[in-house]
């Protein structure tokens, strides 16, 4: 049998030895929490009676008790008089909003005890759709005096001139549904407040701002929270960032009861009460010349963030701020952003945050322009692609977008043309089979978020402090046997970080990966940055850069120690060994060197640094706080082109993907298998949202999507027979130490547009209302 591949997380998965949140051993006396949630989308809470729970031997805390230990609302990113707590104090604003918690010594019993919670409500009319909300006759938050939590209007370049003089302006309206990228593992928290320390185990996506949010709400110092994640997390896709309200609730229950408290969410709870992307309505206008040269974009977006504008939202609108021109050289952009509240589940990070709704609308609109002008959609795109990258920063050249983005130099046309042969082949096939549809999407994939983009939610003159968080810490040390130990305050949601770091660092030292151990988990007792965590595909561009720098610094230290050991100033390094350049047969390998320094640091001459550990903080060089309304919203951007070939079933109006081609230049490829995995996973997530998944509500605001069956999540069966082709280009970028862009999100950003455009090639119109349920296609064909 051949040697097994080097894939650490995979080995844990196949041997069943992964460690997820529900596997963390519970301290003795742990109580299990169940949450009583609002059955109304909008209601005043008149009375909460928990005596029945106590009579049945349980413990329960309602709004009054919880308010004592959760005195403060969470900080918000918008400037609005809205108070968001992890539970409803006197008014419930969405079905599923926590109102009370119940504790028991057995998880089954905790759930049973929910039956004895008695709450009297005065139901109010809910605000459910964007139209309801904008009408404003019923308010989700009375203090706000409307249902608009934010409005920003920004103009870049000569907008009026471009649009009034353009020979053609096309305009399309779009609807993007509420959905959740939905990890297979649900939320889980184990909280234990003891001696003034709040110990929390949670399957969060990183340390991030969790400490800031949770301690603020609880009125505790940030130093009191010791946050840990398990070694493995069963997927997150952004979703688990929104765990912090539940961490706060479980912590409150532990503070009140004096016991460790554990909570693992049910799937149903996850669907109604965890997190989702928002409904977005968009109006896109494209101004162009008759030969298809784009003159400007005009966007109007209404983002429905549910009952509370929960941070990091409304970041979903600004995550793409620096790349609103997509892959095109367009220097006129107008955007109006509305953040709207409704009586539905609050939103948050969701894979490809902000990208799928944005590129769906942009890339369908661009395609519609081509169709309207009768120009081949691929040629129209090629014509508008960015070609010049004139701005030099450090060793790299950039295209600076009108909104502040800095795209590093790449050959966009080469990547787009890469899909062309298949594109033409299937257009030929379309002539024979009219049920075949061919669609494309072109985009730049942003990666490595600049947290400063949330500042755009506030008018420039009202911003208090600048923000540009983006960097990561990596610590590397060498133990007494010469094993290299790496620590990252990150998380493993399946992206292969341990394996990748081991390989990258082993290659920096010229050693075998087997001598590198990697700890990649949240531990706020160790060094961390508020931007640390797994999101926005920041691992390859940022974390790996930090790791490489740390490895190089450690090597420097070792070189100096090797000079002592070898008694010479002239020391070389190769394949894990230091040698005397004057006499290369005199050498000492890293393990031997590390061992002697660990055991006998006293032998070093005075003044030498015996530390075998180094911690590096790496902030990507182009990430800065916004200037006015211009910001480089991501550390980097990479070109990608997608081709979707679909077949429409004339009997059922259902769509089947025959072929999907993805061409991209993601810079240096750290591990090919993992890049492929991200592309294929992103493709399925994209198809899931384009074709199937939607969190639906009835006209009373009750969630309808309460099961996987209703969610229509694709299973293995839906993937059989799909032919996927991946085309990698590899131009290492010079502005990042790792040379790598992100790859986790771009595919999902492009799929909705590629599929809608493919369908438009069959039925002659773009169905711009997601998901593409077959009855919508049937009706569009009838029109």
């Amino acid at each position, binding site marked *: 049998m051949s040697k097994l591949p080097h894939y650490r997380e995979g080995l844990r*998965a196949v041997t069943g030895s992964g460690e997820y949140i529900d596997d963390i051993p519970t301290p003795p006396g742990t109580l299990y929490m169940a949450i009583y949630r609002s059955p109304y989308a909008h209601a005043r809470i008149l009375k909460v009676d928990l005596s029945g729970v106590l009579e049945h031997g349980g413990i329960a805390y309602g709004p009054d008790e919880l308010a004592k230990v959760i005195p403060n609302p969470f900080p918000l990113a918008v400037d609005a008089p809205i108070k968001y707590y992890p539970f409803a104090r006197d008014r419930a604003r969405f079905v599923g909003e926590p109102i009370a918690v119940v504790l028991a010594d057995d998880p089954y019993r905790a*759930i049973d005890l929910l039956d004895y919670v008695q709450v009297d409500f005065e139901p109010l009319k809910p605000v459910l759709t964007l139209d309801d909300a904008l009408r404003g006759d019923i308010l989700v938050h009375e203090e706000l005096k409307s249902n608009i939590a934010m409005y920003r209007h920004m103009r870049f370049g000569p907008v009026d001139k471009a649009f009034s003089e353009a020979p053609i302006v096309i305009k399309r309206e779009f609807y993007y549904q509420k959905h959740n*990228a939905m990890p*297979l593992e649900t939320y889980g928290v184990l909280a234990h407040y003891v001696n003034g320390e709040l110990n929390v185990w949670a399957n969060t996506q990183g340390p991030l701002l969790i400490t800031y949010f949770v301690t603020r709400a609880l009125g505790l110092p940030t130093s009191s929270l010791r946050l840990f994640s398990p070694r493995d997390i*069963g*997927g997150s896709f952004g979703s688990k960032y929104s765990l912090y309200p539940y961490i706060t609730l479980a912590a409150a229950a532990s503070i009140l009861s004096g016991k460790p408290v554990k909570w693992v969410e049910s799937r149903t709870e996850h669907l109604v009460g965890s997190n989702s992307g928002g409904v977005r309505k968009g109006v896109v206008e494209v101004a162009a010349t008759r030969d298809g040269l784009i003159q400007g974009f005009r966007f109007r977006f209404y983002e429905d963030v549910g009952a509370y504008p929960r941070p990091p939202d409304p970041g979903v609108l600004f995550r793409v701020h620096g790349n609103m021109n997509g892959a095109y050289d367009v220097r006129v952009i107008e955007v109006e952003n509305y953040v709207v509240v409704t009586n539905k589940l609050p939103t948050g990070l969701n894979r490809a945050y902000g990208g799928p709704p944005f590129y769906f609308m942009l890339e369908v609109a661009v395609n519609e322009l081509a169709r309207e002008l009768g120009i081949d959609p691929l040629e129209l795109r090629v014509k508008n692609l960015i070609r010049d990258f004139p701005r030099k920063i450090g060793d790299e050249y950039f295209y600076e977008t009108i909104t502040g983005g800095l795209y590093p130099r790449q050959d966009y046309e080469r990547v787009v043309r890469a899909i062309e042969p298949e594109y033409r082949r299937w257009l030929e096939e379309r002539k024979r089979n009219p049920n075949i549809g061919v669609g494309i999407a072109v985009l730049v994939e942003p990666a490595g978020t600049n947290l400063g983009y949330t500042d755009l939610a506030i008018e420039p003159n009202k911003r208090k402090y600048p923000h540009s968080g983006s960097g990561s810490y990596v610590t590397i040390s060498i133990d007494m046997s010469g094993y290299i130990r790496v620590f990252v305050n990150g998380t493993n949601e399946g*992206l292969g970080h341990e394996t990748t770091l081991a390989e990258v660092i082993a290659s920096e030292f010229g050693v075998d990966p087997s001598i590198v151990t990697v700890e990649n988990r949240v531990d706020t007792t160790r060094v961390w940055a508020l931007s640390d965590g797994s999101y926005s595909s920041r691992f390859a561009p940022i974390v790996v850069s930090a790791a490489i720098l740390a490895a190089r610094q450690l090597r420097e230290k070792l070189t100096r120690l090797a000079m002592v050991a070898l008694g010479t100033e002239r020391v070389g390094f190769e394949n894990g060994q230091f040698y005397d350049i004057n006499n290369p047969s005199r050498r000492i390998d890293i393990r031997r060197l590390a061992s002697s320094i660990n055991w006998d640091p006293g032998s070093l001459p005075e003044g030498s640094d015996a530390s075998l550990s180094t911690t590096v903080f790496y902030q990507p060089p182009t990430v800065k706080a916004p200037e006015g309304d211009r910001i480089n919203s991501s550390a980097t951007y990479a070109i990608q082109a997608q081709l979707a070939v679909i077949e429409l079933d004339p009997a059922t109006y259902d769509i089947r993907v025959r072929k999907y081609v993805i061409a991209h230049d993601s810079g240096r490829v750290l591990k090919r298998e993992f890049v492929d995995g991200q592309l294929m996973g992103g493709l399925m997530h994209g198809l899931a949202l384009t074709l199937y998944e939607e969190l639906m509500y009835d006209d009373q605001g009750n969630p309808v999507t309460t099961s996987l069956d209703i969610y229509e999540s694709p299973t293995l069966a*839906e993937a059989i027979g799909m032919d996927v082709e991946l085309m990698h280009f590899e131009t290492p970028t010079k502005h990042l130490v790792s040379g790598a862009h992100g790859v986790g999100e771009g595919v999902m950003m492009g799929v909705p547009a590629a599929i809608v455009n493919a369908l438009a090639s069959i039925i002659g119109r773009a169905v711009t209302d997601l998901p593409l349920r*077959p009855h919508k296609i049937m009706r569009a064909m009838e029109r």
Partner: protein
Amino acid sequence: MSMAYSLGIPRGFRYVRASTVNEALSLLNEYGGDAKVLAGGMSLMPMLKLRMTEVKYLIDILGINDLRYVKVEGNYLRIGALMTHGDVAMNKLVNEHAKILSESAWHIADIQVRNLGTIGGSLAHADPAANYYPALIALDAEVVIRGVGTERGIKVSELYKGPYITDLKQNEVITEVRIPLSGLRGVYEFFRRGGSSFPSVIIAVTYQEGDGVITDSRIVIGAVYPEPVLVSGHLNGLGIKEVGTRVSDIVNSIFSSIDTKPLEDTHAPSDYRVRVARNLLTKALMDIANGSVQHLRTPTKEELIRWEFRDGVEYVGDLVRVRVNVNGQWIEDLVEPRLLLLDFLRRHGFREVRRGCDEGKCGACTVLVDGRAVKSCMVPVVRVSGHSVTTIRGLSRGMELHPIQRAFLEEYAMQCGYCTHGFMMVTHDYLTNIDPTVNDDILKLSVKNICRCTGYMNIIKAIKRAARYMSGSS
């Protein structure tokens, strides 16, 4: 008003067993409306777990092996009520005599559900989208129903009284499904949307012909209306070819004769459902006319899955004693009767088995019970007392990986790893008991676990690689 969203755990119940039909009947009589029989549990357990229904007593009938048979007798194909969907799908006799019934069973859920779910249970549950009803009505089948001291036979079309309502009395059980061997041949068309569990449209058409002329015909439309709609004799007298030339008239007249309000749910609005039903009926009729009916090509077998009750049910107060052999080691405990096998395994350290949903769909919790893939979240542990359960740790030998583990690792068939155990376990059953060759069509009908990370491509490759390893052709 109490609305719970923390679901996935049934309310408490008392678990009892019946080893014979008479015992089941007398227990049903004794407990009155407080009891239900538990067959495969693939409908009842989700309803209990989602707390949509409640029972005081669950009478486990899975061990009544007298109700597991298939035979040709007295001009009928006779099928015992406890025959599993998997057996209905694969059994040779069913495939020979009632191909569309086999096809309807292949379309039910996945391997795990088919390993436990039973034909009698499906009929008794009477889901309007259940796969069997249209097939059985088209085949003009009957059921045998027994009560204490009574036995009656009625047509399947009369058993169904409405969504989740049947002609069964509380103290009766279905014991047999019988299909007349009248020579009806047929077509089964099926539409299910995305990863949803149940179909949105089913069309079953059966007919007999003599000298190119149709002498008898039965058309059934399922999942579209609150009840399966039977149109009998509509094609009689038509020449086979005529069915094709007059297809739109035929379809129009059939649908205009139906004045029931169509169903509407999140998967499909009513007008769309009807449209698809018309299209699929048209397709079915054209296939008949053109002689181009395509049946699923599926593997068959003769032996049936059996189920033994082992160990008695010993109560200590409200708790019940269980003993399960996990990976070769007996584990004993006193548990609530409702404790799910999933939680039992996890509490005893088998944490490789994981929970991903409340409804029994995702497959993350899959283990082998007596070598067959079962979703451990759908089985109260007391049911499997005395039986053996295998997790991946029971397949690997020490540090040496099982070929399935190796194949999954080599194909990078995981990301977060949360689904991996369930996938490997169902793959084991699939390759061992269903289809060692991994035909795409069979795989599509069999493995429907959910993975949110990988996009499935590498898992499909891993299953194929594992098949090569297991057949020795690496």
